[in-house]
């Protein structure tokens, strides 16, 4: 048993995600407090992994691991964790980390905390802060035992603290990777032809409150008037009212426009992840307790349809 901290980093097309660095920064801080080592774990093939600030970086390199495969990645990570018994294993609460954290927890019988916003050590014990119930509750929990797994929400810690130049140590896969039941077939790229919302300076973003597909037109009209593009939260895309390329948030795109005008979005943490860097956030939502009002710069609980129609007349 060690006091080491494993960070399971994430990458796509050779590029590491912000949350990887955020976790590494936090891992360093925790490792210092515990007297352990922070270890970045890179699972992949032929990627340059020398950019982390961790005490060490282990790169498991195998052609089979070229693309994310939850089964192969899971087996590799499980083997490493079993071998080194770290005190804490950190995943991102992301498309990849979400496949692995709870799975590993059940495999190893070790506690797991999801939706993690904060990690602290109090009197030697780990206190993990989790943002659950769609952002309506914060829970402080203490994982029992000698190993814990956390899945961290992106944007919880600063990116810079995890950036460094630790040289990665390449190792071969600790497990045999043949006979996999999951096979990567092909990558899916965003539908061509649609606008790139990440490149827009102004977004009118609609949420569940827009009510129906027919009402999307109103948002389109308003957006057109101010030279903006329509984006949305996940439910709007799930309902088929807008293409997936318009989705802002964790499972969508991260945007940083000058203006983010929100109509009927309550502000679930997954959505906030994608837009909180916007320069001017204006939120219209009838629920005065909607979490978005804690993030927006300006807000109103007026009826979004009335406001949008009145704005159209004024513009």
């Amino acid at each position: 048993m060690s006091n080491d901290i494993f960070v399971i980093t994430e990458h796509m097309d050779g590029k590491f995600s912000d949350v990887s660095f955020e976790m590494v920064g936090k891992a360093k801080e925790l490792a210092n407090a515990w007297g352990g080592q922070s270890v970045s774990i890179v699972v992949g093939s032929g990627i340059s992994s020398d950019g982390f600030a961790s005490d060490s970086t282990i790169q498991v390199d195998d052609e089979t691991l070229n693309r994310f495969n939850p089964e192969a990645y899971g087996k590799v990570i499980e083997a490493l964790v079993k071998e080194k018994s770290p005190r804490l294993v950190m995943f991102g609460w992301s498309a990849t980390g979400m496949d692995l954290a709870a799975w590993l927890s059940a495999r190893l019988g070790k506690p797991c905390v999801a939706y993690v916003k904060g990690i602290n050590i109090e009197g030697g014990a780990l206190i993990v802060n989790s943002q659950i119930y769609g952002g309506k509750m914060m829970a402080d929990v203490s994982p029992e035992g000698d190993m814990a797994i956390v899945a961290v929400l992106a944007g919880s810690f600063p990116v810079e603290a995890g950036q460094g130049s630790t040289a990665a140590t390449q190792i071969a896969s600790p497990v045999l990777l043949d006979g996999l039941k999951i096979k990567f077939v092909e990558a899916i790229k965003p539908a061509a032809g649609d606008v790139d919302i990440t490149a827009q300076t102004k977004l009118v973003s609609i949420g569940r409150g827009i009510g129906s597909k027919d009402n999307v037109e109103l948002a389109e009209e308003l957006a057109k008037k101010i030279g903006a593009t329509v984006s949305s939260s996940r439910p709007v895309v799930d309902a088929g009212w807008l293409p997936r390329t318009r989705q802002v948030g964790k499972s969508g795109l991260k945007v940083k426009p000058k203006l983010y005008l929100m109509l009927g979005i309550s502000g679930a943490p997954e959505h906030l992840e994608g837009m909180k860097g916007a320069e001017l956030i204006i939120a219209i939502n009838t629920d005065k307790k909607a979490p978005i009002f804690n993030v927006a710069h300006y807000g109103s609980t007026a009826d979004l349809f009335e406001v949008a129609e009145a704005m159209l007349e004024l513009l």
Partner: protein
Amino acid sequence: MNIVVAIKHIPSIADDLPVKGNNVDFDSVDFVLNEFDEQSIEQAVLVKEATGGTVTVVGVDMIGELDGVLHLALAKGADKAVKITGDDPAADSHQQAKWLAEAIKGMSPNIVFAGVQASNDLDGQIGPMIAAHLDMPYIGGVSSVEVAGDTATVNKEFAGGFGAKYAVSLPMVVGVQASTKPPRYAPISKVRQVAQTATIEKVAPSGESSARLTMKKMAPPVVTGHAEMFTGSSKEVAAKIVDLLKSKGLA
């Protein structure tokens, strides 16, 4: 083909959540079906319609009100409903996943669906845990599923329209992000007819597992900042927003 859907009955977040001690006051909240489970039930029914087979929906009865949810699933095209008589509104994901895995084992599933996540997944989601217990591969964040023979082809979403297509030898567990088509509407007369005729199989909880988390504190988030609120009629609010945009050169 045996298609199983594992569902979660969770506290509704449509309203404020009252706290009692160190947890949600389960007596004064409404329980609803996890919204991702609506997608996963639809996806299961779509697969059944394409390939044949039976859909069995199984969930832990947290507060004794799961029947309504199961009837709705049956009305939408599920063939069998099973409830695990957990009767513990505080049962965590680890415990539910263990009970579900034990119940599902006997159903010889070819494919198991679960919602990709739930808002109360403090200790992680049931989908990957069920996969671990049943020793099946798991892929979450899935937005389409096609089954041919003993292979499922699934699309997993990463972000921003990027994703990957995987071929998986069945059996497997799928964490559904969104069904291929939006969930269908079940007319209440159908739901009521189902409620009168359908039998819901009751299964006693079997197996133990725990999140192994000690709750120190649960509370609504401390508000750090708050938006400056525009008040007045919708027209006045609109005027203020337009003025603001114009003053910043944004309109």
